[in-house]
């Protein structure tokens, strides 16, 4: 299990790609890493990318709810991206779709906010632009 955090400063978006199982044991670690990144980058949008989550119980709901609270206090929002079907089921059971957007395409959220005149920029530049911080379990 690990979480890869990508910062898109011009869009003020932070993307946390969570890999592996989210349970009570691993949630503690994910929470710590994500909150550390929120504090240092001050994003307006936090995207929890659940596409590589292999299992999730209600601890994954706690993870969304806790981040929702933090981001709301900062006037920001939380978005859950690409959850697999069985994880979507748990999210929906908890009514998470009423609290956060659940999206499959994060592209609109990581593009520069004033990007209207800079549409010609290639996607490659975008990836380079993001400062990648990868964290692994010790």
């Amino acid at each position: 299990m690990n979480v890869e955090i990508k910062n898109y400063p011009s869009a003020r978006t932070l993307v946390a790609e969570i890999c592996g199982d989210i349970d009570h044991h691993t949630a503690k670690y994910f929470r710590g890493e994500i909150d550390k990144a929120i504090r240092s980058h001050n994003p307006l949008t936090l995207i929890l990318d659940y596409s590589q989550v292999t299992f999730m119980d209600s601890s994954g709901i706690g993870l969304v709810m806790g981040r929702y609270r933090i981001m709301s206090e900062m006037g920001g929002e939380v978005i859950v991206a690409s959850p697999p079907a069985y994880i979507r089921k748990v999210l929906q059971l908890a009514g998470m779709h009423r609290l956060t957007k659940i999206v499959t395409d994060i592209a609109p959220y990581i593009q520069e906010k004033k990007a209207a005149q800079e549409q010609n920029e290639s996607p490659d530049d975008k990836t380079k632009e993001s400062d990648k911080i990868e964290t692994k379990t010790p």
Partner: protein
Amino acid sequence: MKRKPLNEMKVSFPSYSENERFARVAVSGFLTQLDPQIDELADVKTAVSEGVTNAIVHGYRNTLGEIFMQIRIFENRHVYIKIRDKGCGIADVEQAMQPLFTTAPEEERAGLGFAVMESFMDKVKVRSKLGEGTTLILEKTLKERV
């Protein structure tokens, strides 16, 4: 009337949070003999994860204890899972089972454990006595494979 299980498994482990994953994997391994559908297996694993987490977070809060898990398979693909702890017990079971009720908000527990178990299993039963521990019984009849 007492029915005889077709197969049975018992396991016990200390209440380390690392063992939440072990409990899920053990259940899923034992149930492979029924060749369950992936979504049904995910439902059972999620319910077991909630039950074992409750024993760790609430039953043995700040202490270490033993968790006992038993799985029985009956005729017609009926699965019976018992998760037992000898922890602090639950004062008010009905209240504990209310959605969003939690005694551990600082740990970001959403209070949805029982709601998840009830939604993913056919039957959820809780027996608890203060100071003696809690027994959770989860039951589900798996769909017939075509």
